[in-house]
């Protein structure tokens, strides 16, 4: 039975998650790069929205959610949305049209490769990016999504809890981002020349829209306009706020001043970490998650990254990979059946097994994403080359990849 209230909420949530990719992520990343690369960076988010919207309808949805093949991937039975209709599919959600579930999940498939772009910003060839994205979505996102959320997926059968995509979205993209950063190498002059963000207000605009859209991402994942959506909504807002505050206070102690970039980064880290947990934890647990993720991600971004000197340019790994991993593990500690009877209790509520299951989910996702991403990069590098030539990098990707520039100097 289709419920009009549930349908209204998921329609709106779908639009909210779309907003996260463009302009949310596009501006969040766009403000952080140098003036000469802002369009190229935004283009990567914008392009992925166009590309995966088509891929998902043609074969992505079928691979992810279609009838199971060996607990590993969906079959091609739903290719081109064959058999996906207005009738609700009770495996996934019994009160909204199956097509609405499909398009809602599409927006997740869109944003996930978009997150990776933070790792190779300012130096990736656009043609290579387009090829990488379509293969990554098909070979990494779609299978992992099937494992965790698809009917018959092996992690789902195992009982792994991932409310809104901590492993599916953030661990898969964040870990792949690290591989990309290592494989592509540093930006020319990294560590030697200053590379300050060219327009922080754009970044804050993006972060704010991400926060806004995340309500659709997490509370929408209840797939209904119900109590569970309310829990997830509150956990989302609370973790973001707690992580933003914590990050700023860490900076205040560590480097002398609280910064707005720190606040925004902290908030996004908090949102990432609470994603897998949102529908399973209480508001006070959400505060804990927020505080923990701020400490861990701050260490990853401001200490580990500088020490190991890899150029994860916009901290896709440091925020999404680390934050997602932490969130998935914390779900195994803090989940409560009291909040969501469909879930399970975590370690702190008497069920240590759940923590083990979460760990298996995280490790499997990391191992698989890292391996496939590495192979993809190798192949694409051999065929079209991943990086732009040195000279084009110095001139900037806006001009060399897209022949346009973001700002005029005179009137």
């Amino acid at each position: 039975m289709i419920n009009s209230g549930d349908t209204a909420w998921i329609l709106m949530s779908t639009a909210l998650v779309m907003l996260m990719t463009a302009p949310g992520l596009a501006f969040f990343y766009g403000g952080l790069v140098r003036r000469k690369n802002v369009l190229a960076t935004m283009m990567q988010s914008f392009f992925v929205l166009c590309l995966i919207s088509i891929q998902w309808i043609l074969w992505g949805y079928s691979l992810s959610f279609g009838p199971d093949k060996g607990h590993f991937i969906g079959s091609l039975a739903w290719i081109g949305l064959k058999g996906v209709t207005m009738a609700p599919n009770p495996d996934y959600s019994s009160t909204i049209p199956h097509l609405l579930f499909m398009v809602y999940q599409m927006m997740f498939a869109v944003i996930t490769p978009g997150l990776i772009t933070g790792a190779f910003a300012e130096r990736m060839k656009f043609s290579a990016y387009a090829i990488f994205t379509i293969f990554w979505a098909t070979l990494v996102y779609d299978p992992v999504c099937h494992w965790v959320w698809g009917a018959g997926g092996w992690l789902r059968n195992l009982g792994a809890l991932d409310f809104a995509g901590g492993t599916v979205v953030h661990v898969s993209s964040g870990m792949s981002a690290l591989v990309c950063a290592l494989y592509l190498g540093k930006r020319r002059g990294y560590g030697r020349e200053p590379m300050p963000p060219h327009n922080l207000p754009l970044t804050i605009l993006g972060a704010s829209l991400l926060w806004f859209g995340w309500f659709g991402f997490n509370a929408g994942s209840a797939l209904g306009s119900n109590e569970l959506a309310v829990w997830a909504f509150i956990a989302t807002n609370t973790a973001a706020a707690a992580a933003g505050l914590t990050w700023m206070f860490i900076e205040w102690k560590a480097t002398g001043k609280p910064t707005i970039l720190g606040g925004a980064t902290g908030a996004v880290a908090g949102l990432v970490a609470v994603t897998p947990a949102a529908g399973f934890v209480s508001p006070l647990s959400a505060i804990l998650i927020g505080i923990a993720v701020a400490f861990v991600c701050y260490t990853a971004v401001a200490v580990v990254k500088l020490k190991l000197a890899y150029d994860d340019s916009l901290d896709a790994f440091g925020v999404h990979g680390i934050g997602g991993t932490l969130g998935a593990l914390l779900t195994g500690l803090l989940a409560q059946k009291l909040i969501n009877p469909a879930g399970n209790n975590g370690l702190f509520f008497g069920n240590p097994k759940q923590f083990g299951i979460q760990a298996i989910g995280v490790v499997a996702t990391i191992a698989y994403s890292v391996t496939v991403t590495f192979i993809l990069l190798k192949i694409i590098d051999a065929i079209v080359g991943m990086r732009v030539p040195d000279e084009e990098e110095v001139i900037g990707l806006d001009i060399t990849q897209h022949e346009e520039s973001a700002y005029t100097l005179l009137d």
Partner: protein
Amino acid sequence: MKLITAIIQPHKLEDVLQELDKNEIHLRTVSDVIGCGRQKGRTEVYRGRKETGGCLKKVRLEIAVNEDFVQPTIKAIMAAAKTGNIGDGKIFITDLVECIRIRTGEKGQEAIG
């Protein structure tokens, strides 16, 4: 006629302009520039990464004056821009061969100011 080019701290601009006005020196052109000398750059911190050693934001003032205004101009700039700290800036003075007011076509001494 001389062209005085001064590179100063951005936050001293208001003071310098006021001081110049007091000395009846009105013609000036201001632009944003970046540069550095002995001052090695303010530290800014982005996600824990310290950015130093880059060029600093400065303001460039160009003032065209007749000979008798050269000293007052320099004094005015010094009075307002000097803090005694590294990074206060520099003043360059070059000869000006000609000056033309576009509206009237006047040249030389009359055209200045």
